């Protein structure tokens, strides 16, 4: 099992968002988290990657995760290519993986541009390229489709299909349909205590 979650609860600001959450994901499975705003989709993703404490229940990961959330985490003054290479080096991923990721997210023409010049959608694509280039087996995507145009959504869908087909695992939170056929889906509304 790549991810196994049992009896997980999340308390934010004194309020229990969800409780008794149970699921396991194996290699080659993808999970979509749905539910209205504020139901705890982002919190669950942050708990899985260890950014929020897990006070009740347990999470175990047997693969390294890569996270793309609403913040691109790219230095505004650096060129896009360099900013992405910084993370690729930290991940010690092979450099052709980064070139591939840049190409797949359609960022070739933007690699020399400083990050602060990028639009919202381009920034989102850059964050997704960072995940693609990490070589991590588990992708955690928080609203990956936000701000993307149709062509970029298509590219994202193809990248997700390829990752799952290659034995990777994906957990994505999205309030609209993504062009990828998820193997599982959890609506967090029904996990509220």
């Amino acid at each position: 099992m790549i991810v196994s979650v049992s009896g997980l609860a999340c308390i934010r600001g004194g309020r229990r968002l969800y409780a008794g959450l149970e699921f396991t994901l194996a290699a080659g499975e993808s999970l979509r988290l749905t539910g209205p705003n504020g139901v705890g989709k982002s919190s669950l993703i942050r708990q899985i990657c260890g950014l929020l404490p897990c006070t009740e229940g347990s999470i175990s990961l047997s693969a390294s995760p890569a996270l793309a959330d609403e913040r691109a985490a790219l230095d505004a003054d650096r060129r896009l290519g360099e900013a992405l290479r910084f993370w690729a080096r930290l991940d010690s991923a092979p450099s052709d993986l980064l070139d591939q990721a840049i190409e797949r997210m359609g960022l070739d023409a933007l690699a020399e541009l400083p990050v602060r010049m990028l639009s919202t959608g381009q920034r989102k694509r850059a964050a997704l390229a960072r995940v693609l280039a990490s070589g991590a087996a588990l992708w955690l995507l928080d609203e990956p489709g936000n701000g993307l145009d149709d062509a970029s959504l298509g590219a994202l869908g193809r990248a997700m299909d390829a990752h799952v087909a290659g034995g990777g695992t994906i957990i994505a939170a999205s309030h609209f349909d993504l062009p990828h056929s998820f193997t599982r889906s959890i609506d967090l509304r029904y996990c509220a205590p």
Partner: protein
Amino acid sequence: MMRALWPLMRRDIAAAWSGGGAWLPVIFLFLVASLYPFAVGPDARLLGATGGGMLWIAALLAALLPIERLIAPDVESGVIDQCLVRGISDEIIVLAKLIAHWLSFGPPLMITALPASALLKLDAGTLIRLEIGLALGTPALAALGVLVAALTAGLRSASAIAGLLALPLAVPLLIFGAGALHEGSGAALKFLAAIALLLIAITPIAAGAAMRAGRE
């Protein structure tokens, strides 16, 4: 985990110099040194006797200038979270920031102290003791800066609170740093080194804990 130290440090040093932030402490120290003789008059004996202490005050305040951009921007942009997801602990991130912060303001400040001491008519002995004191004291000032930056990251009017927090903690450094300027004051240097060791040792742990608490 330690292998992340070097890339993180290099990123911070590059950001300090390319953003121009690293020049601020240097220019500040030089400005103070060039304005001070205008304020107290050109009496070489008075300048020589008080100039060293003035340079210590300037160095201390110069160290506080970049506090705001040490940690808060990286928390906001998600860089810290991305490091944590990669298994790099808060303590390692803080250690990298501490070393990078010192490298981008300590040695430049020590070099600026050379022309500054000429402006203040410091004699050679005082200059050497000032440089030794700065070599011991600037790492402590860097540690203090990172610690306060971690404590105030994400607060509103963080820079004002940062100044209030850092200044009382920096007073011992000022006392022993300026105290070491007189001849035969080896004990003051030893106290300065002891304080520096303490601050450098607790900063990664305390600042790491502050960052962890700030994520709740």
